[in-house]
């Protein structure tokens, strides 16, 4: 039981989560090859980023137990992530990389 009162997943649930993550990774690789054939461009980038975000959230939420921890931990972690993303997106935009790649 976590400090917040939620039950942690069982080993069986961890295996299911891992299978889901493996399936998402397979979908990512499939998207890479589909894009080579169909040249989806922005749509490919959007789908890959979305799939990557799903994996990220699942690992942080279930494997790192952020879902079951105290909110303070969630806030620290999210603050670092949001700060880093914001800072470097501004840098990339300022240097024209986002426009060049987009």
């Amino acid at each position, binding site marked *: 039981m976590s400090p917040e009162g939620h039950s942690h997943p069982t080993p069986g649930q961890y295996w299911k989560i891992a299978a889901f993550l493996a399936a998402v*990774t397979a979908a990512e690789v499939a998207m890479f090859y589909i894009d080579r054939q169909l040249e989806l461009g922005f749509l490919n980038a959007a789908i890959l980023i979305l799939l990557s975000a799903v994996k990220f959230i699942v690992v942080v939420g279930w*494997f790192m137990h952020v879902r079951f921890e105290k909110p303070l931990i969630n806030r620290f972690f999210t603050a670092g992530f949001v*700060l880093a993303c914001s800072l470097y997106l501004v840098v990339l935009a300022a240097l024209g990389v986002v426009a060049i790649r987009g």
Partner: protein
Amino acid sequence: MSDVAHEAPVAHHEEHESTGIENRKLGMWVFLSSEFLFFGALITNYLLYSNRGGFEGVYPSEIYDIPFTSVSSFVLLMSSLTMVLAHHALSRHDQNGARTWLFATAALGSVFLGGQVFEFYEFISVYDMTLSTNPAASAFYLLTGFHGTHVAIGVIMLLSLWGISRRQGGLSERQGLNLELVGLYWHFVDIIWIVIFTVVYLLSVPPL
């Protein structure tokens, strides 16, 4: 001095009562949070130079072996599963199970590292792409090299915990917290690779 030493355990107890979270655990979360800035800088550096043309030599995006890197990514992802199973086993006082899953995690981490060494070796020996070939190559080696260093440090910590557990016949409560902290670090290394795999490999753009 002796009074301070005598009172230390009480002070320690009060410290982690103030937030309701063990100080070392909170410290690890703050450290991991700051690591986003570190890896963010390296990923940004790569994005700035990955497709900037006008330089001699092979660009990383021209020689990526996606099937090979996909398998490496899968291995690292599965090491997160074995890590969480080690943590779960210890929480159930299953010392043998925890030790087995710890070793499995270290083994999978080592396989990932071996794959990275092989990739670097191939890029250097077959394609002659070294650290100084062009800015894109430098940025690629810097980013993946630092990530690999983090994985290597994680493997060392995992094997240390495995060794302690093997020697003592199990992990104490305090060492159990160490396992949780190493686990957090290990999962973090995994999520950074999730980002690198997508941004660097799957969304690679040929040089302009």
